[in-house]
């Protein structure tokens, strides 16, 4: 049986852990709110770009622009987005697992795979496996904006145009709700235009300079926007995951404190009872 002092010490330590997890939960909640509003604010832009693109791309052929080119795939690039920090439940593990799965699948199809690492966790993961990322980024938390996304996307776009890679995928945690995050893995290059509504419901537009000119301008931006969306979603999802992880930790700490307090009281009572018995026993002995 643990001594009274041991139990007391443990209670104190669990209490201070609870303080920390509680504080982290609050911080995440605040960050989540900000990340969520950034995400919502970015939405009109990406929706509009996608809308314009699907209208345009369906009206031109696949070889109108290098970014639309579907080639035989022998080399693929996977952009994996994770968090920089842990303590957010299975958030990073899920993304890493999905990344490993996709890489294994592509490799089994005979493709050579490059990984672009966004976030410390994927970087460390690759290092453990002895793989070298094509490019790596970290410290983006809270600093994600369009230009960051454009820088990350530019490398992939250049690689694709120069034939260094034939396919580009992106993996990130999607923000479903505060309680659910969902790992998404999707192909961003070559662009999938089949989902676009067909050209007939587009009114007759005047194009300035030309359809091809606008398309050439729009496609790289569309890739940027997809990366941006991935980054923003991932950020919100990270904070949401951390928030619920910390909430659970706080609850677990409270439960533990309850159990320990009970044990402490029991031990105290037992000690008192023991002492009383001794005293009574002693008194009885003296009486006799």
């Amino acid at each position, binding site marked *: 049986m643990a001594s009274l002092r041991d139990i007391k010490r443990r209670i104190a330590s669990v209490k201070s852990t609870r303080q920390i997890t509680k504080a982290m939960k609050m911080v995440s909640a605040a960050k989540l709110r900000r990340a969520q509003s*950034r995400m919502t*604010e*970015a939405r*009109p*832009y*990406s929706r*509009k*770009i996608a809308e*314009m693109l699907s209208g*345009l791309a369906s009206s031109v052929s696949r070889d109108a622009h290098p970014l639309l080119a579907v080639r035989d795939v022998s080399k693929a690039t996977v952009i994996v987005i994770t968090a920089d920090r842990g303590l957010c439940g299975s958030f990073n593990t899920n993304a890493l697992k999905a990344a490993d799965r996709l890489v294994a699948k592509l490799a089994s199809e005979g493709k050579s795979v490059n990984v672009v690492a966004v976030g410390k966790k994927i970087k460390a993961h690759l290092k453990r496996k002895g793989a070298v990322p094509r490019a790596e980024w970290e410290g983006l938390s809270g600093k994600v*904006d*369009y230009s960051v*996304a454009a820088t990350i996307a530019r490398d992939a776009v250049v690689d694709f145009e120069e034939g260094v890679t034939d396919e580009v995928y992106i993996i990130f945690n999607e923000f479903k709700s505060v309680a659910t995050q969902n790992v998404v893995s999707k192909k961003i290059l070559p662009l999938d235009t089949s989902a676009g509504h067909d050209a007939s419901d587009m*009114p*007759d*537009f*005047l*194009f*300035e*300079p030309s359809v091809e*000119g*606008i398309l050439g*301008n*729009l496609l790289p931006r569309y890739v940027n*926007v997809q990366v*941006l969306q991935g980054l923003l979603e991932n950020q919100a999802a990270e904070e949401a995951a951390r928030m619920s992880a910390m909430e659970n930790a706080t609850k677990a700490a409270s439960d533990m404190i309850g159990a320990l307090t009970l044990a402490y009281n029991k031990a105290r009572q037992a000690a008192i009872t023991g002492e009383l018995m001794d005293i009574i026993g002693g008194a009885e002995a003296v009486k006799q």
Partner: protein
Amino acid sequence: MAERLKLDIVSPDKLVLSDEVDEVVAPGSEGEFGVLPGHLALLATLDIGELTLRKSSGFEHVFVSSGYAEVLNDKVTILVESAENSRDIDVNRAQAAKSRAEDRLSRTHDGSIDVARAEVALKRALHRLEVARKVH
């Protein structure tokens, strides 16, 4: 004139402006163009420059970096990477960006600096300053 244009300026960060205006003059990549109510459907690329809005209360000037303009059924959507109303422009920052870009361009021969990027940065800074001057 009863008819007015519905104007939205959207950047990746936010919806910059949403307003009803009488006329929009935009810096198209093929030259400046104006849009009045009843304009045909148009999709145009925009250059770095100044967007002028005419409203009944007067003119407003907005700095825009490159992007697109879509005109459809009297609704004008401007999609740009960044947009700032003339009174929101940070003049000091633009000034700093201008001197930084100029500095880079003056050292182009050392080859390490991307000339095209510096030129674009300079253009952005100059236009920002130009638009900022028009605060009324």
